């Protein structure tokens, strides 16, 4: 077809239930061996999109191609995909071995072939010892491994993950995350991964698609998404604690608000160029310099400290700039306390400017 490098290609995909539009005119090309993360808050349509790709939901319009084949109307089993679910979805009455081989039996794969594929998958995931157990006898992490194994034995090119780590506790989540990444490096499969956790997204993805209201807001590498978000929504969604926004206006090279005036001459404007008018300035808390470091910054201002939240490695400070909330991050050793006044500095080059009405990045 037209692009031999793309493994999964979604073209003009539409989905609506009655009058409720769930997905609108989606176009996504996913390259061979790419790890794409669909990221968004709940209800944004990311899981729905994944279900469409899997063939578990019928689309209302558009096409889905996998490996250059139009699979829009194909049954899930014929699409060459494997899928891993949030709740693991292991068949409770079957052993681990039964779970792994069920799909292959349905496909009438030869017994010896099933045996060897199950063996290989179990080796890769280090679950050989668990093969004869029932899912109820496994821990959460082990269950998710088996679920991944079920996708693995299908010997497919595309893996779909539907929030696979959400049911695990924080520690397990982190370790399985690394394992998934290792698996990807080892197998070079195409992986499409749905999550609402931005850390998972940032750490795993080759590219991230941020979704909202059934449409992709931005599709780009984690770095692009983080440092040059295309609009205010993406900027606010990525990063924790989230970005500070100050409303003001742009006149010439300067951002002007009630509390500050910043020269934006070092700011990398988007292609659309600069236009005077109402804008919002976005500043990431981790990009705010404090105290001594602030003195080197092009713009400095004094902030009242309201609440201090020590997190160990660093400390979050909730300050106020003449009544406006201002969050920033300081070193974990900082001795700041409520009531202090502190000098903070901002580098305009690391900020973002958004048009007030279109919410697009300038």
């Amino acid at each position, binding site marked *: 077809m037209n692009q031999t490098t793309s493994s999964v290609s979604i073209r003009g995909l539409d989905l609506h239930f009655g009058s409720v539009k769930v997905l609108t005119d989606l176009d996504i090309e996913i390259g061979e061996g790419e790890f794409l993360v669909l990221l968004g808050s709940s209800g944004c349509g990311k899981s729905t999109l994944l279900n469409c790709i899997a063939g578990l939901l*019928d689309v209302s*319009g558009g096409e889905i191609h996998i490996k250059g084949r139009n699979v829009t109307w194909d049954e899930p089993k014929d699409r060459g995909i494997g899928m891993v679910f949030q709740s693991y979805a292991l068949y409770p009455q079957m052993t681990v071995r039964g779970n792994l081989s069920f799909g292959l039996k349905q496909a009438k794969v030869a017994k010896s072939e099933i045996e060897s594929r199950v063996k290989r998958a179990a080796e890769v995931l280090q679950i050989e010892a668990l093969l004869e157990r029932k899912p109820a006898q496994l821990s959460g992490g082990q269950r998710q491994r088996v679920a991944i194994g079920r996708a693995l034995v299908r010997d497919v090119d595309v893996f779909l993950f539907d929030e696979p780590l959400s049911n695990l506790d924080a520690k397990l989540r982190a370790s399985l995350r690394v394992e998934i990444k290792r698996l990807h490096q080892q197998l070079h499969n195409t992986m499409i991964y749905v999550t609402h956790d931005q850390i998972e997204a940032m750490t795993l993805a080759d590219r991230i698609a941020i979704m909202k209201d059934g449409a992709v807001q931005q599709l780009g590498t984690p770095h692009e998404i983080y440092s040059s978000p295309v609009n205010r929504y993406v900027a606010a969604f990525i990063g924790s604690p989230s970005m500070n926004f100050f409303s003001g206006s742009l006149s010439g090279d300067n951002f002007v608000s009630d509390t500050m005036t910043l020269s934006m001459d070092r700011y990398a404007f988007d292609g659309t160029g600069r236009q005077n008018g109402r804008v919002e300035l976005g500043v990431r808390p981790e990009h705010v310099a404090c105290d001594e470091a602030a003195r080197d910054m092009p713009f400095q201002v004094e902030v009242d400290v309201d609440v201090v939240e020590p997190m160990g490695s660093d400390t979050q400070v909730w300050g106020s700039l003449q009544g406006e909330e201002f969050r920033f991050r300081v070193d974990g050793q900082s001795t700041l306390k409520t009531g202090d006044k502190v000098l903070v500095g901002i580098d305009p080059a690391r900020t973002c400017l958004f048009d007030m009405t279109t919410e697009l990045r300038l």
Partner: protein
Amino acid sequence: MNHQITHKGAQGRRPFRPLRNLNAKIAAIPMILTAMVVFVGGTIWTVVYSFTNSRLLPREQFVGLKQYERLWGTSRWQVSIENLLIFGVCSLVLSLVIGFVLAALLDQKIRFEDTFRTIFLYPFAMSFIVTGLVWQWILNPRLGVQNVVRDLGWDSFVFDPLNNADIAIYGILIAAIWQGTGFIMCLMLAGLRGIDEDIWKAARVDGIPAWKTYIFIVIPMMRPVFITTLVIIAAGIVKVYDLVVAQTSGGPGIASEVPAKYVYEKMFQSQNLAQGFAASTMMLLAVLIVLIPWAYLEFGGRRRD
């Protein structure tokens, strides 16, 4: 190029294919037949033929509302309706009150809860015929309860509802309550258990007495359970038949007749089909009066959420 053609969505729509999901449709055939042929079709058929003068066999000779005029002019039907009203109101109120009180008592974290529940519910496993016959025996004037009390020395004691035309229906009521309240209690108990434990903790911290908590907090919270229970009881009351047949056969005289019995006898014994159809249509009407407001509240409201 492919890309350009397909870019604007709609072309990808699946063509209409009745064979899609075929197995599910096959599996639903019995349901579709039951719903459309028996429930809808049968109901319409009966209503239509209630306007004829069918006797031994159904025939299409329409006589307007004549069957209904005759129906409402029959004293037996009037008694049936009167009985149904008395029986219905009493058993509604009594089952709800007794059922709820028993459920509340059982919900006090008491010992032997399972034993008590087993005792209260076992009558529900028995048929109305068995229920009717047992209570007919217990209420037997010469050998039953009345006799036992008289033997104790109270010679003038009278408790013979089944042979007293004025109160025969209450004799049936006693048996019906005995048979059905255990079930209502179970529904109520499930409702009570469904209420957040924290509500009770909050009420206790606030110092609200238990009975007040029940009346002002718990019962309002259980509104859906009450409404559903009400509908279930009401639908059951209209169908009441076997119990009367077993306990009194409608007697003494026609004192404990009920509509369902009237319908059966007109259709299958006195070869007066259209009369039976008219009477059953009236029963349908009575159920609809209960059902439609409920369905409206239950489903109309849910859709708006």
